[in-house]
């Protein structure tokens, strides 16, 4: 009790200035702390803002008072309220000569303003002056602001001073000057590119702190351009060695580790420099091995350094001994009780398995434990590891687990990611068609709204083309099983839109292909879908197009089309739809149904979604028609470039008509947008781009052409035009490594106490034959077919009959006139076909780039890879310039005085555990409870006590 009184007195005194803040501020903090609701807090803060607004403009405010106002402003803004009225006062404060006020002003402006704020111009002058100040604390404060508030335009104003400060006598200033220069480099590399050599020079600084600071910019520079810094390898290694040997001043020790943060930075840099470079790596082996041995694994920071060693070892040219040491550390991490260490262990394992896949098998049970751990972070990390080690033997278990996990997570961002990973793995390793379809169904069912539309298009393409195996029966089996499962699923309520689109497309394309289901059954289901999801126009569009295809296939097969009554009513309903796209589709449908078998076969050939289409870009088939018209007295066509005074209206119309067509080409509006964006990416297959672009002309100018029959003409005419999309299929069966892993089985036998269930899981994940063929080819040759499919199914249908139907009023010559401008302006300049191709391309790249990463390549291969590389990578050779050697000497001599105590005994000091290091939790809680009693912090029990004391 007496103690409490003392505290109360102390606090009361504090309120008069002991805390440096007035009673008002104390009251503010207190009342905000006690606020019961957000609204109450807001009210308090708003009234505080009013007070500040009034007070801050009063004349002759004492300095100390002004400082407090500014701090209060910062406080108010931290709570999320606008304090912009006070910015100018903070700026004014930076001009003050008093260090205290200046620092406060600088602190406030760094928190308030951004580098492009209008008020910055008022500070630049002050900064310039302060950078030249004799008082190093003022210089430091100014450098701090420079880091935060100088933008590309103002860099030149302060750059000379900052560079000068690199040679300042105080190490604190040098350090900050380096960081400021680094910041400039980040903001505008070009403005300081001539000064980059300064970082190298400062690496030789006598002060370890300054040297450590230079590692930050050097790390960035080396990340961008490794080869220019290879000469520093020896210096870095020697610095690291000196640190590891404890030759830095004692003050850099942290938890008995010598300068651990600098060690970490150096190891990161070495990892970059040694990657794929045998000669450079050889310099590192000794020192990294030393650190592995010396590192104290009882503290967080010791383990942080160990983890960094593993990262380094797995990045540089492999060394068997170091890999072994790394594996040992990983084992220790995974066996630890600490979740943090397990997390690091899993991450490290993910790095190491690239080099030695067998490491994973030693730790299979630990990995499974992590997978079942309640800690979400750990679980995700483990899934990442599994993703990296997926092969055809374990894909079923892994994807299954992933989906189970995916179903239960709420975080949409992560759900999307894991869903696309499932899809990727399933596409690459699927053991059977049936499994693949089932898996995709599950992914779409549970995350259909989250996966990217690209994934859906991929799936359609896969179903259309099969996995690239030679035999067609497998492909048709895949389709049948897809159709079968979709017909089963389609009745389920609330399916995601994207999934429905896939279903509709597949049913339209292959619903009746194997003859198992009748057209009327499938069309009935499609009509149900269109009915059930009447709000979703995209799904309805897909459904209508699917209906059209089914009818067409029926007609082509010579069967009579019987349209179900619900189908008829759907058609009627949609023909009056507000969506022009839907309307057009329905009109198309009606028009096509009326045609004879031969005609429909030309428009929509069955299972031809993957065929190439050739287009006559010269439109030679129109020549007769044009000639006729001219003879009848029609105006000859004048290209837009030769025309003057084009009417805006025609432009506009042209755009509309173009848009219509685009919508037909790419049914889904959002998809259309995506396509346009994709067009900015340079195409990888540029060979055909010019031709591809021109194909659009062909489409456009067919307007007003009398019959559909010319589609045949177009194909025959353009034989001169080669198909642009020809791609040689890649052979995927080259890399088969089917060696059974007996070792893992032996291991399992010895571990009796493990539950059989877990063992089974382990076996399915790690054991078994690790047959690891990636379906590199499965996506490889798909692009051509995929891109052309849209061509066929739409170009055929839209260009002829349907477009004609939608705009039947306009006379042909007009249409021709309008046709030309569209090619050149607005959306028309973007070529949909090319875009589509590009859209499909990334997936191909993505999947074909993968095989190296996943466990498919065997160890010898990697060795080979490395042995090839150094030869070319080091053409420059290793010359150790005198400057870098000197730098070492400098550092050594600079630190020589510190070496005396290098005989420090680690084991003697190893006792204090991690926990005793940090602030004592119990103490703090007690203290906090005490504070609460005094009524200052939230949920105070006894505010009265406080009130009494403060009056």
């Amino acid at each position: 009790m007496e103690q409490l009184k003392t505290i109360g007195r102390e606090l009361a005194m504090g309120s008069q200035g002991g805390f440096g803040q007035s009673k008002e501020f104390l009251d503010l903090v207190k009342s905000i702390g006690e606020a019961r609701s957000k609204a109450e807090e807001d009210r308090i803060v708003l009234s505080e803002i009013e007070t500040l607004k009034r007070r801050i403009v009063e004349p002759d405010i004492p300095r100390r008072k002004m400082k407090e106002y500014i701090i209060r402003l910062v406080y108010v803004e931290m709570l999320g309220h606008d304090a912009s009225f006070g910015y100018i006062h903070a700026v004014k404060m930076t001009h003050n000569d008093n260090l205290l006020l200046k620092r406060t002003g600088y602190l406030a402006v760094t928190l308030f303003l951004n580098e492009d704020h209008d008020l910055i111009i008022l500070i630049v002058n002050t900064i310039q002056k302060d950078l030249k100040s004799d008082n190093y604390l003022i210089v430091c404060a100014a450098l701090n602001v420079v880091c935060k508030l100088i933008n590309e335009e103002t860099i030149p104003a302060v750059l000379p001073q900052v560079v000068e400060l690199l040679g300042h006598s105080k190490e604190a200033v040098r350090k900050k000057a380096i960081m400021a220069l680094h910041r400039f480099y980040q903001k505008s590399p070009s403005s300081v590119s001539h000064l980059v050599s300064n970082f190298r020079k400062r690496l030789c600084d006598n002060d370890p702190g300054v040297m450590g600071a230079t590692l930050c910019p050097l790390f960035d520079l080396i990340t961008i351009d490794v080869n220019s810094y290879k000469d520093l390898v020896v210096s870095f290694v020697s610095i690291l060695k000196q640190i590891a040997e404890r030759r830095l001043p004692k003050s850099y020790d942290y938890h008995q580790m010598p300068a651990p943060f600098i060690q970490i930075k150096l190891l990161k840099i070495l990892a970059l420099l040694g990657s794929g470079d045998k000669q450079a790596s050889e310099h590192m082996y000794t020192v990294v091995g030393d650190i592995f041995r010396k590192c104290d694994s009882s503290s967080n920071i010791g383990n942080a350094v160990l983890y960094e060693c593993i990262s380094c070892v797995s990045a540089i040219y492999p060394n068997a001994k170091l890999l072994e040491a790394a594996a040992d550390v990983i084992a220790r991490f995974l066996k630890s009780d600490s979740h943090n260490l397990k997390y690091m262990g899993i991450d490290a394992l993910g790095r190491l398995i690239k080099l030695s896949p067998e490491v994973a098998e030693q730790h299979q049970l630990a990995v499974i434990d992590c997978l079942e751990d309640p800690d979400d972070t750990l679980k995700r990390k483990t899934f990442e590891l599994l993703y990296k080690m997926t092969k055809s033997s374990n894909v079923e278990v892994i994807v299954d687990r992933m989906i189970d996990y995916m179903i239960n997570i709420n975080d949409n961002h992560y759900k999307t990611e894991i869903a696309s990973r499932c899809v990727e793995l399933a596409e690459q390793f699927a053991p059977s068609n049936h499994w693949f379809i089932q898996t995709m169904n599950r992914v779409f069912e549970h995350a259909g709204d989250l996966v990217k539309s690209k994934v859906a298009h991929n799936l359609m393409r896969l179903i259309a083309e099969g996995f690239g195996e030679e035999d067609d029966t497998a492909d048709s089996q895949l389709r049948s099983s897809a159709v079968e499962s979709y017909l089963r699923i389609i009745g389920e309520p609330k399916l995601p839109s994207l999934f429905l689109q896939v279903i509709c497309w597949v049913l339209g394309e292959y619903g009746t292909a194997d003859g198992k289901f009748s057209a009327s059954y499938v069309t009935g289901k499609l009509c149900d879908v269109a009915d059930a999801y009447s709000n979703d126009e995209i799904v309805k569009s897909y459904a209508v197009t699917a209906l059209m295809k089914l009818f067409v296939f029926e007609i082509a097969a010579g069967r009579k089309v019987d349209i179900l009554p619900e189908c008829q009513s759907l058609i009627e309903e949609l023909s009056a739809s507000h969506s022009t796209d839907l309307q057009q589709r329905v009109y198309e449908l009606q028009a096509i149904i009326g045609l004879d078998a031969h005609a429909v076969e030309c428009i929509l050939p069955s299972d031809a979604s993957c065929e190439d289409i050739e287009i006559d870009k010269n439109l030679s088939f129109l020549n007769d028609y044009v000639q006729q018209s001219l003879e009848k007295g029609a105006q000859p066509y004048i290209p837009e470039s030769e025309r003057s005074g084009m009417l805006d209206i025609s432009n506009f119309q042209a755009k509309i008509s173009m848009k219509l067509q685009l919508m037909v080409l790419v049914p889904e509006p959002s998809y259309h947008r995506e396509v346009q964006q994709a067009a900015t990416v340079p195409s990888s297959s540029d060979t055909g781009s010019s031709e591809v672009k021109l194909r659009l002309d062909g489409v456009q100018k067919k307007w007003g052409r009398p019959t559909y029959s010319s589609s045949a003409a177009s194909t025959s005419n353009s034989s001169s035009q080669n198909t642009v999309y020809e791609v040689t299929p890649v052979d995927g069966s080259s890399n088969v490594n089917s060696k059974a892993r007996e070792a893992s089985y032996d291991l399992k036998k010895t571990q009796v106490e493990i539950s059989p269930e877990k063992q089974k899981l382990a076996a399915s994940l790690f054991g078994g034959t690790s047959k690891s063929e990636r379906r590199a080819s499965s996506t490889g040759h798909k692009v051509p077919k995929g891109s052309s499919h849209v061509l066929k199914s739409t170009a055929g249908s839209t260009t002829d009959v349907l477009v004609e139907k939608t705009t039947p009023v306009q006379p042909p010559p007009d249409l021709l006139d309008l046709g030309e401008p569209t090619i050149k302006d607005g959306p028309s300049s973007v070529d949909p076909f090319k875009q589509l191709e590009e859209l499909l391309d990334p997936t191909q790249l993505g999947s074909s780039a993968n095989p190296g990463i996943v466990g498919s390549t065997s160890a010898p291969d990697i060795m080979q890879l490395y042995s090839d590389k150094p030869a070319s990578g080091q053409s420059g050779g290793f010359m150790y310039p005198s400057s870098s050697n000197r730098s070492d000497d400098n550092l050594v001599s600079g630190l020589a005085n510190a070496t005396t105590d290098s005989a420090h005994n680690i084991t003697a000091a190893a006792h204090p555990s991690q926990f005793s290091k940090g602030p004592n939790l119990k103490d703090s809680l007690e203290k906090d409870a005490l504070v609460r009693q005094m009524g200052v912090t939230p949920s105070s029990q006894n505010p009265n006590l406080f009130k009494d004391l403060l009056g």
Partner: protein
Amino acid sequence: MIKAVMVINTQGKPRLAKFYDFLTVDKQQELIRSVFGVLCSRAENVSNFMEADSIFGPDSRLVYKHYATLYFVFVFDTCENELAVLDLIQETLDKCFRNVCELDIVFNYSKLHTILDEIVFGGQVLETSSAEIMKAVEEISKLEASSNSITLVPKTVSGWRNR
């Protein structure tokens, strides 16, 4: 690079927030709220690391320390080591206050900023020697004290308790 440092109390009130890339006040509040939302849903005895892609964009990670009534949060990208950052938090507190509590932070707002500026400079970990940091902070404190008759950097709450 370190993207942000936050101190939030267990009721979700920010006690200190420093973002190394400029963000508007509203955006900052939003981030603080979402970080707090994620943190309070974490069980005890789990790891102190989190992936923060959904809050701070790709490749963001978050390390936090739940301590008495406070969460200390560091947000950074792949260039930092999680365990090291975890220690960075502890080191910071260790050296500044004997047993840090919420009050210390509220009332030493500007001091905490000073300390943080010594350790993290422009988003990079600048100085890691705690002795150096303390030296710098002490020097600033002394100077501030001499320019002002009143002590501005008080002892911690436990400081007066132990008297």
